[in-house]
């Protein structure tokens, strides 16, 4: 079943049918060919319960937060400041992309929203300064994925909910791997551009005075981080509610910057609805596809694959990782998590793996899924904010960062403390 679905998926996507619509069509196909039951009668109920979600409302909130930061001028100043700090490295502004994405990840729980925010500020610069569009946009797509590893994180909330693991602990566990991965993204960028300088723009250097004085441009974003995360750890807001706190705080900051007017609010609202609708059609379609696949026995296939593999715990872990890499090519990340967590996590916990640690590992794998073709929401979002060029360029540009993520998976296995140190210490 998995193979026929994958091949039909590729075919329909190539026809340039909208991704969300393709997922529905595949669901109809499974209903038709793999299931003796009228699964389509469950369609309405699945659409209702996947949209009626007080967790997913964090997505439009985080998108709105990003829109306000962009249109209120905060994002641009953050970007400019990070440019001053990192542009001396081989690769120049590409590092500012990653740096900005890292900072926004700390205020946004959504990878897609993070990528959208950074893309909107950064993309005009690429064209102006003559960067290779592939690496430049790939770095944004990849940097944006940090949104779900560095707290807050919608995906960690979903993981915590499904596995009954503490969400604040998961958040703490994601912090060090997230920052480490940001550094690794910069390292590989520098390495690539050192070998092939034509990929990056001209490196630029600024005086220490300029750098230090630009630091105050980072104050708003740090303040935002403190408020969003603080509201969770102080026990004021649930992780989902903290998104609403973030929106309000972002608006206050934009107000203080004098960046708020009716036109700006109008654009922020329209941008938020556009991006949210684009994401939600894919997510709802993915939920329906997942529903039909589960009914037709995907769970059984997975369970028997994992339980009858006869592998050692480490072998099973590698099998699971391979599984996520492959499924991640084709399946949207939230529904991938919903479909597999109930099957995979109990098995892994039974083998002695820590649930918090495994959650962080899964997030890294899911981040990979966000930037691997053909189904990768971050690729789509970055392409959506470009004025020219093809989706293929973004896909190619994101490749090196996939390698970094693979390396990160290895590091997490070798040094579980990367994830488990903070939750244990605090």
């Amino acid at each position, binding site marked *: 079943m998995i193979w026929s679905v994958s091949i039909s998926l590729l075919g329909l996507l190539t026809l340039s049918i909208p991704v969300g619509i393709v997922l529905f069509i595949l669901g109809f196909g499974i209903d038709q060919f793999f299931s*003796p*039951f*009228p*699964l389509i*009668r*469950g369609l309405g*109920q*699945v659409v209702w*319960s*996947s949209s009626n979600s007080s967790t997913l409302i964090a997505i439009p909130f985080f998108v709105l937060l990003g829109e306000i930061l962009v249109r209120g001028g905060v994002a641009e100043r953050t970007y400019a400041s990070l440019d001053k700090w990192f542009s001396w490295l081989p690769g120049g502004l590409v590092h500012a992309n990653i740096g900005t994405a890292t900072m926004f990840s700390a205020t946004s729980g959504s990878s897609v929203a993070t990528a959208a925010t950074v893309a909107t500020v950064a993309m005009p610069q690429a064209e102006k300064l003559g960067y290779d569009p592939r690496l430049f946009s790939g770095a944004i797509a990849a940097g944006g994925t940090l949104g779900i590893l560095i707290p807050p994180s919608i995906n960690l909330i979903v993981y*915590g*909910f*499904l*596995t*009954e*693991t*503490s*969400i*604040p602990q998961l958040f703490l566990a994601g912090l060090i791997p997230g920052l480490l991965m940001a550094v690794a993204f910069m390292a590989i960028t520098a390495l690539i551009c050192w070998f092939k300088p034509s990929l990056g723009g001209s490196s630029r250097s600024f005086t220490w005075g300029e750098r230090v004085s630009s630091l105050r441009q980072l104050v708003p974003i740090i303040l935002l981080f403190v408020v969003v995360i603080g509201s969770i750890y*102080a*026990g004021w807001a*649930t*992780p989902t509610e903290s998104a609403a706190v973030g929106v309000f705080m972002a608006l206050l900051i934009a107000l203080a910057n004098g960046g708020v007017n009716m036109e700006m609010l109008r654009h922020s609202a329209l941008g938020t609805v556009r991006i949210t609708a684009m994401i939600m059609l894919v997510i709802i379609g993915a*939920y329906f596809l*997942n*529903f039909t696949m*589960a*009914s037709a*026995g995907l*769970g*059984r296939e997975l369970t028997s694959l994992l339980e009858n593999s006869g592998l050692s715990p480490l072998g099973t872990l590698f099998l699971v990782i391979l599984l996520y890499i492959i499924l991640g090519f084709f399946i949207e990340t939230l*529904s991938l998590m*919903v*479909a597999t967590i*109930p*099957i995979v996590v*109990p098995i892994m916990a039974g083998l002695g793996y820590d649930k918090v640690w495994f959650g962080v590992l899964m997030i890294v794998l899911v981040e990979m899924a966000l930037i691997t073709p053909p189904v990768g929401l971050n690729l789509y979002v970055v392409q959506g904010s470009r004025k020219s060029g093809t989706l293929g360029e973004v896909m190619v540009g994101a490749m090196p960062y996939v390698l970094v993520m693979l390396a990160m998976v290895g590091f997490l296995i070798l040094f579980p403390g990367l994830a488990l140190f903070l939750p244990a210490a605090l």
Partner: protein
Amino acid sequence: QAEELSVVGSWSSLPLYKQYEAPFWTETLPGAEGSDFEVSMTTFDQMGIAGGDVYRMLGDGVFDVGMTVADYTVGDAPELEGLDVPLVATTADDARKMVDAARPMVEDIMKERFNAKLLAIAPYPPQVVFCKDEVSSLDDLKGKKIRGSGRMTTKLLEALGAEGINVAFSEVPGALERGGVDCAVTGAGSGYSAGWWEVSSHLMTLPLGGWDPVVTAMNMDKWESLSDEQKEMLQTQLTEKFEAPAWDAAAGALESDIACLTGNGECAAGEAASMTLVEPTEADTQQARKILEETVLPEWAERAGSDWAKRWNESVGKTVGVQVPL
């Protein structure tokens, strides 16, 4: 020729599914002598559907057999709340009697509301109360913020003068620690394995959240398409090999879970915690009945209609010694 059944189980992470539902449907039933049943099984959480939607889909024939917590589905059938009235059954034996008394009612509800045939009712472990501060009686819950689940439990908390708060399971330890809630209700076993004892000190064994019975039902059209032998075999197997063992285990489970949480007795699951056990007094029981009869049940009778309340009085009410004033 094999009779294929598509079965949707309850929460895949909980013992009821792992120890009873899955083995029964995938091994016991197909392997029973003379059985021609073949089963493909999944669970509602793996399908990504809400627990409250299981019977809606079952009635539509999206699958043949569905299992879910009856309390999740009372939005569609408020009369089903009568299956799990909190506080009236304090032991597994009492709970079983309560469920048996309610069975004919549930049978009719499943048929009328969901076009489904009732096959079995099995319990989740009883829901107990974890509190971070000292409590010694029901009265002490007054003014406290309590995480409960289920509509009737929330209404009961309100009637007790407490505030019902909605917190996801995984967020409870944090909420207890930071004072977002003072007490929280869940199954004793889940509370033990999720480490709630680390952030709370007192354990009340009052089933404030009821027993969360899980109802197994089959699409009515499918049921009617079965031969008499098949019906008979399915029902007997379910009752003897699924329902009975699940109930038998419930009694023992509560005892060992409480041992794990308080340290009084043998804990097989791991290291025992040292919570203070607060057992219900006679006064508590009296007070609980009073509140049920004066506030909670009359409100339910309004939601469900007085016909159902009357039927409840004659069956469950008689068994547990509580009456809805009509």
